């Protein structure tokens, strides 16, 4: 958790960050009057380092480091409770989503094993066109150095035939990997500009 302890304005407020978040998420962050309804409704507050209303406050004050390095944005499950209840009509879930990919861009992802899991998920999609769950779990366990994850469930899962051994490769694999390629190009181009 990056603690924010003492701010000197305007030096410590990153206006570009505020603008970037507002543009990408298409939400007007200044509308938030910090009522806390989002945090009251958020089931994950108990594991966050900053409750979601404080994430919104940190954005309002341009605290880029604290926000993009927070654990909160990576523990958010996108469950939409905050968006549903916000009285100011702010799509907070969309803001959190924006913060996630901004932190990927800045390489400040705070919870490495979640990023790892997502990376392996995406790799699986890139290669097969679909998620090969068995492979995903195996690779994750290996790379996260947690080889016994879900091992307790393995016997029953296999017995009930829930995990295929062989991945299904779709015929349109190339179409999917082309999408990835075009996306990467777009991303690189955007970063250069």
């Amino acid at each position: 958790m990056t603690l924010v302890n003492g701010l000197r304005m305007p030096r410590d407020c990153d206006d570009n960050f505020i603008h970037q978040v507002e543009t990408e998420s298409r939400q007007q962050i200044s509308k938030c009057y910090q009522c806390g309804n989002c945090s009251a409704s958020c089931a994950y507050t108990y594991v966050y380092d900053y409750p979601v209303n404080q994430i919104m406050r940190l954005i309002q004050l341009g605290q880029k480091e604290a926000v993009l390095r927070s654990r909160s944005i990576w523990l958010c499950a996108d469950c939409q409770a905050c968006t549903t209840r916000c009285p100011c009509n702010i799509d907070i879930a969309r803001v959190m989503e924006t913060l996630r990919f901004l932190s990927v861009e800045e390489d400040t992802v705070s919870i490495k094993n979640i990023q790892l899991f997502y990376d392996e998920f995406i790799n699986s999609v890139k290669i097969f066109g679909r998620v090969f769950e068995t492979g995903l779990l195996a690779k994750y366990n290996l790379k996260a150095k947690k080889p016994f994850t879900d091992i307790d469930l393995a016997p029953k899962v296999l017995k009930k035939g829930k995990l295929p051994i062989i991945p299904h490769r779709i015929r349109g694999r190339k179409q999917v990997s082309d999408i990835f390629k075009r996306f990467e190009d777009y991303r690189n181009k955007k970063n250069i500009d």
Partner: protein
Amino acid sequence: MSQTAKRIAYYPGCSVTGTTVEFDQSTRALCTALGIELEEIPDWNCCGSTPAHSYDPLLGAALAGRNLALAEEMGLDIVMTPCPSCLKALKEAIRKYEEKQQSFLDILQMPFSGQIRAISVLQMLYEDIGPKTIREKIRYRLTNKVIIPYYGCLLSRPPEFARFDDPENPISMDKLLQAMGASVPEFPYKTECCGAAYGVTQNHIVGKMTGRILDMARRLGAAAVAVACPLCQQNLDLRQSQVNRYWHTTFQMPVVYITQLLGFTLGIDPKKLGLDKLFVSADDLFKEKSEPLENQTQLKSA
């Protein structure tokens, strides 16, 4: 009301072809019985789900978009998916199109008109079939069974995006369960999150969240929990042993798909519904299938 031979594009999604295969099984069997023709999108790809749009929503939208473009090629105007997370990804793609994001179209590079509509299984069952038809068609009733309708967080939220049922107190599954004769109590955790995709990476979260739901269900005297989301079902059923460990308790709560329940009451062969694949056995619930209805007309006037 049911429409005979209604054709809908079907997007299964990766989870129902893997660990939650019984949702796919039961959905297909149910649709056949109800006269809905499901046409699986040929060679569909993963929509990317949470990982892709955490990486970049644009990537997620493009991956989902390929499936919509393929569905449009099939000449169909509705695509139905059992997984609410996939549904969200598909709707996001449509929204990116409506927001006229050129980058989305450039990355997708497939003809796409954005006219297709994406709905969930539950929405199809409630709006296109409806409780009245269910009541008329079922052969067995779930009389005296308390069944909890657990919707999960995505089916009806946020309201302007989901455009289905009520975001705070949805009733679609309630009504379907009641049509099957079940007793449905007020359940305050209808839309509380179960822990989502954190089963692997942050297992304790699933332990706490899912446990809360199972605990409330138990306190309400439930015979089973009905779900319409494969991730919810996975957390509540597949991971129930892990949840038990977290809470130091022994929930023995069957967690069944609404499609499985409907299939059973319609008299479909349980094997076709994948009932044997449940981790927590629902045999007690389905044991009393030997009670056929006395009189169809008696039911119609009810």
